[in-house]
Every structure is written in structure tokens, then in C-alpha cells.
């Protein structure tokens, strides 16, 4: 409820609320003609965290990659800040969007500092400014400043993912795309990073599209949850409504989730 109020508040202060990201009847077909997405219409508002929830193969990651044009739609169009991505310079588009993936993909031959500072460096920032930015970002994602000179292989999984987030934030993009960023982490680290993500997002107010197959994560992080199945968007609901949704697939998710909790308490009781 609080989230919806903030959203309404935003709309009042920024009157022409053009969605930051917009899918207009988007389809994506593989070169072998296998359709992965069809008839996708979706809008992402400024400052919200939209979670794409669904099974593997439901089209979540495809949807995400259409935003920074790692994939090009076969039909329809994707707009970022009102401009069709097909009309924009793909390199500029990607540099204006932070991208975090599950495997992190840190450059193994670069130190943490160079990893984080790469996009600013390409963007022509001074060494001094990059250095300050790296320090600031390490602090923001909860890492010690002395990690800056380490190489990725010297970090733990959680630390690597934090560096991945810091790297995505380096040039201060307004949009952040996150593809199961915490999926490969152990439960405790994941929990901690989710908490940190929430407080980080409160301060930064980025427009985030977050892919996950974990309902718990979706409920926790999302302002709205977009449920996908077999290449189609099933429904888009705020978390509070999602748990009460009459949609059969959404209900199945909630039931499976609650089932997990029940079975634990049942085992405790017996």
C-alpha cells in the first residue's frame, strides 16, 4: 500500500508520466522460427522495481534483453524513455542502462577497481574521478575499500555479485536490469543482498527490471510483479494483490510458496 502511494505521489510531481520502458505488442522469434515471446505489452514506470516472475523458459530473460537490445524484437517495438530502441544508438543505449546477471561476468583480468571503472573510463572520466566513484560505490554496496585492488577470483560469491552491482551503477544509469542476480548465492547471502538492495533502491530510486523465478524474492523486492508463462505476460500486479490474485497461475505460485512454509510447520508439529 505504501508503495502504491509513493507511486501516485510521483505521478503528481512529474505530470507527464511517460513510462521509462514500454513494450508495444512485442514478439520475439528465434532464428529457427521458434517463438519465445508474443503480444507483449508492458510499461515500467520511473522509480519502480518491476519483477518479471516465471519459470525457466517463460521468456523473462528474453524480455529483459530486449530492453538493452542484446536481442532485437521480431515484431512490435520496445521504447526506452519514449524512443524506440531500434532508433537509438545501441552503444549509448546500453551505457545508459545498468546490467547485472547471475553469473556476474566480472572481467577476470581486471582488478575490482578496473571492473567497476570500465564504463566511466571509456566515457572519458578522469582517473581521479573514477577512483572517487569506485570508493563511493564500494561503500554503497557494502564492500571494504581495500578490495579495490583484488582480482575477481580472490572474492567470495557474494562479494563478486556486489561488485557486479557496483559496476552496473558506475556511470549512474537511470535504469537497472537485473537477471536473477542473487540466484547463485546461498540463502543467507541472498537474504542479506535482497535487504541491501531494498535500502539501496530507496536511496537511488532507479527504474529497475528484475528477473527471478523466486516468488519470495518477487514479493519482497517488487513494486509490481509481472507474471510470465510460455512467452506471454499473464498478469501484472502489486505484491499485495498478487498473493490474493484469482489468476490460476499466480495462485499456483502462492500455493506452492505457502505449501513450502506449511510443510515445515507440519514437520515441526509432528
Amino acid at each position, binding site marked *: 500500500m505504501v508503495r502504491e502511494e509513493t507511486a501516485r505521489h510521483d505521478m503528481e510531481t512529474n505530470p507527464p508520466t511517460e513510462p521509462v520502458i514500454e513494450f508495444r505488442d512485442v514478439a520475439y522469434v528465434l532464428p529457427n522460427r521458434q517463438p519465445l515471446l508474443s503480444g507483449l505489452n508492458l510499461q515500467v514506470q520511473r522509480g519502480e522495481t518491476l519483477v518479471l516472475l516465471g519459470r525457466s523458459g517463460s521468456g523473462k530473460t528474453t524480455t529483459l534483453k530486449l530492453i538493452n537490445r542484446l536481442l532485437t524484437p521480431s515484431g512490435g517495438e520496445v521504447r526506452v524513455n519514449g524512443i524506440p530502441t531500434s532508433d537509438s544508438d545501441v552503444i549509448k543505449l546500453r551505457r545508459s542502462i545498468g*546490467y547485472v546477471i547471475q553469473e556476474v561476468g*566480472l572481467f577476470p583480468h581486471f582488478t575490482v577497481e578496473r571492473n567497476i571503472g570500465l564504463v566511466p573510463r*571509456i566515457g572519458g572520466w578522469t582517473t581521479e574521478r573514477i577512483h572517487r566513484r569506485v570508493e563511493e560505490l564500494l561503500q554503497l554496496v557494502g564492500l571494504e575499500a581495500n578490495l579495490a585492488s583484488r582480482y575477481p577470483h580472490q572474492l567470495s560469491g557474494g562479494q563478486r555479485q556486489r561488485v557486479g552491482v557496483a559496476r552496473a551503477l558506475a556511470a549512474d544509469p537511470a535504469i537497472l536490469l537485473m537477471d536473477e542476480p542473487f540466484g547463485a548465492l546461498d540463502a543467507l547471502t541472498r537474504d542479506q543482498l535482497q535487504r541491501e538492495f531494498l535500502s539501496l533502491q530507496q536511496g537511488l530510486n532507479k527504474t529497475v527490471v528484475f528477473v527471478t523465478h523466486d516468488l519470495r524474492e518477487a514479493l519482497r523486492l517488487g513494486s509490481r510483479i509481472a507474471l510470465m508463462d510460455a512467452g506471454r505476460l499473464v498478469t501484472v500486479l502489486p505484491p499485495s494483490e498478487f498473493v490474493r490474485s484469482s489468476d490460476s497461475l499466480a495462485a499456483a505460485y502462492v500455493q506452492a510458496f505457502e505449501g513450502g512454509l506449511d510443510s515445515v510447520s507440519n514437520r515441526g508439529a509432528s
Partner: protein
Amino acid sequence: MNITHFFLENREQIVELTLEHLWLVGISTLFAVLIGIPLGILSAHRPLWNKPVLGTANIIQTIPSLALFGFLLPVPWLGDRADRLAILALTLYSLLPVIRNTYTGIRGVDPAVLEAGRGMGLTGRQLLLQVELPLALSVILSGIRVAVVVSVGLATIAAAIGAGGLGEFIFRGLAMVNNQLILAGAIPAAILALSADFGLGWLEKRLRPR
């Protein structure tokens, strides 16, 4: 006359032919690197190029070296000077390990790293120069190492067409049934091959990404 004596007496000629040998190997390796690395990159990035490029290099490799030197003899301009011929032949032989290792090295870069790089907005060129090549470097270098070691050996055959190098001693020694002459060619060639192997191997280890 013992072998040390022979070496001392002929040291000037040994040094000269060793330098000639080094020149043949060095210049042909340089050409192989200049041609092979771009071809390797091309076949790694465009799957369609992969088979024809690697296939051709493979076929060249199967031609017996003496025959290849012979084939090239009638080629105008090239046939005029034996060292040009030798350099071309050695370059052709060195191509395969360079192309193949460039291809393998680049294909071996973690796809997640490439996806992250692309997603961050690196251009194809930036991705190649800052990510792919540095990460593939040690594999490419090991291909160059193989090329050099093989070339040092093959270059001795170049003397058969009069291109000079340490092979001169060997062929002369064979003709005169003189073991000392053969060794005067074979020992420096072996030392060259071993030191190239060791030196490049050391460099390769240093450049290996963690």
C-alpha cells in the same frame, strides 16, 4: 679433431648461419602472427569462416615440407630468391597453430563475461581489445610457441633449396658423411628450439589469466 675444436674453429660460420636461421624463423613467425591472429579472430566471430579457414590451414600442414619448397620454386618473384621461398613456406606452416589457438582462445572466453561486456555497452572493438584478446593471450602465445619450435626444425630443410640457415651444415654433413658438420647444424638448431620453447613458455605462464 674433436667436436669442441670444430665448433671453435668454425664459430664465425656457425654464428652466421644461426643468425640466418633466426632471421628465417623470426620473419616467418611475424608474418604468421600478422595473418594468423586476424584469421583466428575472424573464424571465432563468424562461424561460417571457421571451417574454410581452419580447413585450409590444416591442408597446408599436411603437405610434406620438402614438397612444399619444391611446389613454390616455379612461382615468379618468389622463386628468384630462395630465402623468400623459405619464408613463405615457413609462414604457411606456422599459420595453423596460430589460427587454431587464436580461435580456441577467443572461443574459450567465458560467455558471461562477454554478455556483461556487451550489456555494459562495450563496442565490438573494445570487447576484442580489452577483453577477448587479453584473456586469450596465453593460449595464442602457446600457438606461437608451437609455430616457432616447429619452424626452427623445418627451417633446416630450407637449406635444400639454398635458403641458408643451419641446414647448410646438416646437408653438407650428410653429403660428406661428416658427423661433426651435421652436429654443427643440429646442436645450435636444437638449442634455438629449446630456448624458444622455454622463453615463450615462461611468457605464456606469466600472461595466463587467473
